[in-house]
């Protein structure tokens, strides 16, 4: 399943690239892009565990940039 999320207060382009890398490493994530320009996150991940994976995504993003929020 592919889903898009808006990101609020994503302030640095380098952080976006770091988040993208970190999200891709999460188990169950097939593909992920964090677009600094359009301030959105696109994730393709296992259907059955999507919510759980999303929780992990929020956690890794918090690590990279604590201010940034993912609108679910």
């Amino acid at each position, binding site marked *: 399943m592919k889903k898009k999320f*808006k990101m609020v207060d994503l302030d640095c*382009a380098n952080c976006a690239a770091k988040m993208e890398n970190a999200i891709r490493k999460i188990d169950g994530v097939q593909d992920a892009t964090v677009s600094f320009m359009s301030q959105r996150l696109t994730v393709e991940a296992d259907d059955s565990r999507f919510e759980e994976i999303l929780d992990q995504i929020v956690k890794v993003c918090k690590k990279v940039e604590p201010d940034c929020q993912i609108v679910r």
Partner: protein
Amino acid sequence: MQKNMEERNDTGHKGPFFPVSLCKSCIAWRFSMTGKQKKMLLRILISGVLLIAAVLIPLEGPWRFLLFLPAYFTIGWDVLWRAVVNICHGQVFDENFLMALATVGAFCTGFFGDGEYPEAVFVMLFYQVGELFQSYAVGKSRKSIASLMDIRPDYANIERGGALEQVDPEDVAVGDIIIVKPGERVPLDGIVREGSSALNTAALTGESLPREVEAGDAVTSGCVNVSGLLRVEVTKPFEESTVSKILDLVENSSSKKAKAENFITRFARYYTPIVVCAAAALAVLPPLFTGGGWGGWVQRALVFLVVSCPCALVISVPLSFFGGIGGASRQGILVKGGNYLEALAKTESMVFDKTGTLTQGVFRVAGFAPHGCTQEELLELAALAESYSDHPISRSLKEAWGKEPEQGRVTETQELSGRGVQAVIDGRTVCAGNDKLMEELGISYTPCTRVGTAVHVAADGAYMGYLVIADEVKPDAAEAIKALKAQGIRQTVMLTGDRKEVGEGVARELGLDAVYTQLLPGDKVEKVEALLQQKTAKGKLAFVGDGINDAPVLSRADIGIAMGGLGSDAAIEAADIVLMDDKPSKIAQAMKISRRTLGIVRQNIIFALTVKGLVLILSAMGLSNMWEAVFADVGVAVLAILNAMRALNLPKE
């Protein structure tokens, strides 16, 4: 404009859908800063005042140190806090950490050595000013790109019980009748049932001339209704409407990254750790071996740290591509990703489909050769004779004549398959058809020398002349080919399923280098594959088609360019670049935009690396200070962003 946008947002659009909220933030960008930025500005001002006060108060020793702390913490507390939090999270080499280390380091050299306290505060201050400016500039450019794509309709008018009701376009079903008032955007694709008007298609095609529509015409979502009220029967649900497709395509374009973008991301991953290690070495090794003072070397190392952030590059490169894609879309050229924009600049062969790409795809009367009668008489005879036929050629004759045949003038019509028609018109027996028909009737005729299909006309055995019916070449096609050659395209090729004479005629007229005729759709793929073998390793091959029969070729070529207005949905899907107004001359323009964007990307990379490299070298030799380092970081980032913004503008003619 602002008011307008707000009104539109207040029209009951449900749910936090992205472009709407984007519009709201646009308003914030256009007229003021966001709340976060305003707070930052306030902090900068307060800290500035505190810093000046601290410099003016004449205290010495540790007291002087304490004096500068309020100014420092006002401006830098969040940086310090984030640095600590990030280290706990294992994110060591980020900006916050580097700035914290550099300024705390500057304080220490001030405390123990001969450094200055104001420098530490000022570096932090300068950094925050730069960050604020950077965030403002990025937001501003994001806004201008987003406003180009401001084609999403917010509501549709539906008549219910005699009253107009505004509903979400997503809730409108196929077959519903919607009402589009003057000044409103057409929300869904459909067919006009009542009313006539002019439509402004500029947002979709970049074309400024309005398009006239009346009952029976198809309308595309995203156009703005200029003059009259239209009742439109919806033919596609919102998700499949043109406007949704375009938005989806452009929003996803940033996920297909250009090589330059990937290079920068990879570069950034190594650059920072290397510079930080170099800084550590610079701080420790020389004093250890030479036994000199530690203060000076530590200061040099701190400068290294400030310069080590790759942000200027990481922001400006994707921003340039996004700007290029945005600028192209303003021209009616939709590019599906930065990688295609990059590849376009390296195109060396351009392969065209004929019908619908270089030609209009509709038959028209292209020429007359009357023989002993006037042009009008010839056309009238041909049109009347063909008036009962529904062949494309007959239709084009009737269209050229433009009148309705009067009852009783045409009798005894007879189709002569593969040759033409015969009819009795005003008592005369008229034959209209090809060379074969004339030969059969034993009438001497003038052979047609022009490109196209000739229709000879004879009345009562006397030759009246011929008309040429041709698929007209698009008015800008020849100019498009010339412009492409001027852009450095080495080979222009045309592929067509049409007859040899027609294909070669068109190719000659347009000045193409090669033409392959009488190809079946499968043959086109083979030809493109053969051409792919011929090109050089670095060059790219682009195929331009309308997607009718050539979707496989579009996906096989390095770059597939589709005519989006006339072309099918499959073409838009399979292509990498879509020309919304079907004009081949837009390809040369797209190449110009591509070259310009790549030029800006290159400038930014070279500029940022040169300045940073220079400051690194100078600081290693002890010739540069913290001010220059902060400029090399934030100053360069801001300049690179401003430069990237130029990608949005149109290239000069």
